[in-house]
């Protein structure tokens, strides 16, 4: 299970302030903590970043990789910011991941960038026509994105399909459809397609204390269906990940398995 540490987001006040001042301290502290807590990649969410996005992404990637030997997930809608980030990304720590493309023609150029820089890419299974209704529609969109990726010279093995987790508090019926999507996505290719979710979206709008509970149980169900990666708070999900790996027989049990 690849945990993509989610805490470096422009939405968080402390992170936003550090980004505005180009203050490395808080960014590196959070990245280091996510790494130590079990992340295999660090998400750098700089938002739409319409002004100065290139410089910002460049700074984020180098700031993170200065202290953490992990690849970075470049999270923005600004294509040139992504390209700037990829140029400075240290692939010695693993291949980068772009977050994200979708079936919206405006997002297709991202595939070209991914192919050019040999990056992996998250594909949100949404199109221009709003949110998908069910797993079948998501799988249909996924298939279209896969075909598009091949046109742009990108191996589908480098795609992570994202079924788009929605809030349980407002769209309760979508949770099961997301779980089913993760299962269906894998059947679209041999070897199976890789899957990823933005986990904590499920608990958006819930009371703060309950959010980890919801996140962890959804995570367990998704792991059972074969999920490969999650953008999540490592501290919150690492125990679930290790435990499900034991139950699924992927790790040999020992009393101290959580400490490993």
């Amino acid at each position: 299970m690849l945990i993509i540490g989610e805490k470096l987001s422009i939405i968080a006040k402390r992170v936003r302030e550090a980004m505005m001042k180009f203050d490395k301290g808080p960014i590196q502290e959070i990245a280091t903590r996510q790494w130590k807590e079990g992340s295999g990649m660090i998400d750098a969410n700089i938002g739409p970043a319409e002004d100065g996005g290139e410089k910002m992404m460049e700074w984020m990637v180098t700031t993170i990789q200065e202290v953490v030997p992990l690849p970075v997930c470049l999270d923005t809608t600004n294509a040139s910011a992504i390209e700037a980030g990829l140029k400075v990304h240290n692939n010695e720590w693993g291949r980068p991941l772009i977050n994200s493309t979708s079936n919206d023609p405006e997002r297709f150029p991202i595939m070209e960038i991914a192919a050019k820089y040999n990056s992996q890419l998250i594909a949100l299974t949404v199109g221009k026509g709003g949110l998908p209704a069910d797993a079948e529609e998501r799988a249909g969109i996924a298939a279209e994105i896969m075909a598009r990726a091949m046109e742009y010279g990108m191996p589908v093995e480098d795609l992570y399909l994202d079924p788009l987790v929605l809030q349980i508090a407002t769209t309760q019926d979508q949770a099961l459809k997301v779980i089913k999507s993760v299962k269906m996505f894998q059947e679209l290719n041999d070897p199976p397609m890789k899957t990823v979710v933005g986990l904590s979206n499920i608990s958006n709008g819930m009371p703060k204390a309950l959010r980890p509970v919801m996140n962890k149980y959804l995570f367990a169900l998704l792991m059972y269906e074969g999920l490969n990666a999650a953008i999540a708070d490592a501290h919150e999900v690492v125990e679930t990940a290790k435990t499900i790996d034991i139950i699924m027989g992927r790790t040999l049990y020992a009393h101290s398995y959580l400490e490993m």
Partner: protein
Amino acid sequence: MAFTAPNETYSGKVYQVEAGTDKTIVIGGENVLPFNSFEGNMPNRPVIAYEIQDVPPDDWPDTLKKVYEGVSGDPVTWAKYCQDKLNAKAIALRLIGTHPDRQNRSAQDAAKTVKDVLAAIKVPLIILGSNHVEKDTAILVAAAEAAKDKNCFIGKALEENYKTIVAACMANNHKLIAMSQLDINLSKQLNILITQMGFDKERLVTDPMCSALGYGLDYTYSVMERIRLAALTQNDLTMQTPMLGDIGMYAWKVKESTASEAELPVGGALEPRGIAWETLTAGALMIAGAGLLIMRHPEAVNAVEKFIDELI
């Protein structure tokens, strides 16, 4: 189209562990299942150590005793005999005389024996206690100190007594043998506990507990096989230690290797039967993944060496 045999590739690799200072041995290092070198590398052949004791082998069957007649009265002479006459690649000194039910030798006695044997041989030494949980803590600590910087294998650390033995191995630069009782999960747990003390996992050897042919060999085989699979296929860092098969002491106390032909007519002559029993037990566990074997009868050792030649 010509048939191409499918090849497995593995994500994990067994640690390579070296012992000795003058002449050395190296075990482990493979990234494939035992002897499957057509799929990867098996850089080191299994090593067989000759077992000797700190006290005369009164409890060994006559078949074995007569092999070491005239040398087994003194561990130094015995060790030299194994090294010089039998070409032993390593010596395993079992301090069985320290057991309270045996001669109850003291830690000082044990330390002296270790020093004397080390002074007489060039090949690496494996130092084993008597498997008495309490007594071994004192004995193995004294032995580790007496052998300081000689890069020995020392064991066996058990779940009940590992802490002092681990500390002594760390302080005196030795490799450690950790033994659990035929349980893969407890074997992993013990490795974790030992490394959590700061002991390098690359200096560890796992003994999942041996058993002789006909007396639970299949259990040992299965645990060893699953340890190796966890190491190679799941890249389980806690299970990538080389494994020990402590063959002789198990193979030479069962009915089939000790009962006379009159008592066991179906088994045929006693001497070849005992040798065969030790050979088969060792051969099976080597196939399961043991990289270090402790054995007693020279003819059994030679048979297993020949077996290795054919497999490699």
